């Protein structure tokens, strides 16, 4: 959505994911509640996202896409090293709010992972409803199609840009905190996640939300199934192989729109 709307490939998205986890730890430290943190941390990171968009990205919208790419790459470094300065480099652990495990298909499966399954499905549904059933969602989609036309119709497009960027930052932060009990928290965590996220986005088709969902399902299922037949270490190779094959057959990914990358 950020790429479609702002024309910026946001390399700092992983760091917003990381900041969400750290903000969550800070909120949990004060409130002792994971659930409160799940609301507060995305709001805090959304505020940071809004400030970042206004202060750094906005002046670059009329320039070459390369400027935005370099800027977000720089922002990623600033956020990562900033986190290291503030919280240190040590890994931190967030206790899962849902404990225990459930026997499932012959194995013991952690309840928190089941919760994640439900939470991410609900979140996807909410995002889809937002874009299809709300005026704000329709405006964002319209801006992706033609921002100038929307501006001409009297919509405050710069504010829409800011809110969209803040919204995407909030979603990244939410993901960071939700995954913190599984993967732990450390300054580098965003870098590692962003690569997988880019594979998903490219495979799904740039600018296509449905494509990303399908790509995520394909990659997740492939990862799990391949792990049964081969050393899980080699699964990463299989994932890249899938990406290469799909991009050869469908250069724009599963549902990529014509002209997005051109």
């Amino acid at each position, binding site marked *: 959505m950020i790429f479609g709307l702002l024309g910026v490939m946001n390399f700092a998205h992983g760091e917003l994911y990381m900041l969400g986890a750290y903000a969550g730890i800070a909120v949990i430290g004060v409130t002792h509640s994971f659930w409160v943190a799940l609301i507060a941390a995305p709001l805090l990171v959304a505020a940071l996202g809004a400030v970042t968009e206004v202060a750094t990205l906005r002046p670059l919208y009329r320039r070459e896409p390369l400027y935005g790419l370099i800027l977000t790459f720089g922002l990623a470094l600033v956020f990562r090293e900033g986190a290291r300065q503030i919280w240190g480099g040590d890994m*931190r652990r967030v206790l899962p709010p849902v404990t225990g*495990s459930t026997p499932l298909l012959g194995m013991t499966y952690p309840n928190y992972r089941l919760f994640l399954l439900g939470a991410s499905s609900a979140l996807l549904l909410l995002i889809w409803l937002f874009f299809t059933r709300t005026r704000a969602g329709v405006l964002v989609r319209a801006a992706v199609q033609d921002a100038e036309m929307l501006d001409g119709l009297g919509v405050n497009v710069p504010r829409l840009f800011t809110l969209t960027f803040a919204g995407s930052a909030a979603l990244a932060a939410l993901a960071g905190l939700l995954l913190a009990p*599984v993967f732990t928290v450390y300054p580098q965590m965003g870098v*590692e996640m962003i690569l997988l996220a880019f594979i998903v986005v490219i495979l799904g088709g740039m600018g296509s939300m449905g494509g990303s969902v399908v790509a995520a399902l394909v990659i997740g299922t492939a*990862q*799990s199934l391949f792990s049964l037949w081969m050393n*899980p*270490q080699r699964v990463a190779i299989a994932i890249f192989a899938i990406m290469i094959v799909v991009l050869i057959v469908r250069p724009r990914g599963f549902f990529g729109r014509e002209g997005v990358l051109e």
Partner: protein
Amino acid sequence: MKRIASAVVLTTVAALAVVAAPAVSQPKVVKIGDLGSKVGVFEGYGKYQTMGIQMAVEELNAKGGVLGHRIEILSEDDETKPAPAVRKAEKLILQDDVKLLVGVVSSGATMAVMDVTKKHKTIHWNSVSCAEFMRTTKFHKYYFSNQPDSRMQANGLAKYIVDKMGKRVYIFYTDYAMGQSDGRQFKTALEKLGGEVVGVAGAPLDTKDFSPWFGAINQAAPEVLFLAFAGTDSLRLMTQLHSFGMTRKYKLAGIDCFLLQQDLPSIAEPMEGFVQLNHFSAYNPDKSMQAFNAKFRKRFGVDANIAAGAYDAVHFWAAAVEKAASFDPDRVAEAHEGMCREETHIGRQCIRKEDHQVVMDMHLYQVKGGKNIPIARIAGTDSIGEPMVGRDPVEGFSWEIKKKN
């Protein structure tokens, strides 16, 4: 005109003399290099290595330094990768002219740095890495280690596991130099003692999700799960094993550097009952460890851990320099051989002449309530094994699983 020129010259000379005077009166300086992980999976070890070096240098400088030279530390980050480690080691040696290099943390990077210290004849101490090649095929005369290597650790752990924990063992290791080495040596030692390896698997360094490996472990149905991981990998692995109910299902044991004491309280529940080999614990009643820990705690406000070997490395080097009465690497290296020190972080330690390995006692600890509590002591002479300089320590080794009926 001549008078003006003379005045200018005199003024310049006087000014230069004033500027140069403090430099002349300053004490001579000798630099040492602290190369280690400052970020990433082994960051914790790198941080404590630096603290150990710092404490030793402060003590030495308070007594006049070494050979009348004040010691200065230069710290560099190796990013836990061989290529940057080599680059930084060359920078420290060629540009900064360090006379001692302490580091690095990752075994793969240490082996790469060993080529540099060999080429440039620089005294090299390693206090954390444990791959078996460093005192065998990669060994050189300027290299010293006071970290128990994989062979020492395997000899110490395997017997306890077979005697007290169970004979059917699954080996799960981090798939790079250290983990492979620990896995190999442990498999060899266990099979020699009549134990059965029911499965082996390696996960890449810095793996985020270990769950894809859990199916194979459960299928093999071991009694004991032997884990050769370190740093943030260990923390993540234990969290995930616990969430899948596997910390209660199997008995767990791990290597020396599996987790630093500082990390244990945050992961106390998953780690409960875990048997870990360690040469140092702040909870060991041993007098030498307690004395060192008190000193460390006073200086830094935190307990020491296994990375305190870096403290002893600097003291060993300084003693060798004093003995050799020179910074010449050949003479300093020779002065090290056979040297013993009484006041190390674990008491008396001696450097074996043949492979420059410090002969050190190790302890087995069991985690109880987030603390490493000692349960057995293993004499260094029992675990160190014969010197194998130049010999391939993995000759004839196979990862093949030998099925027992």
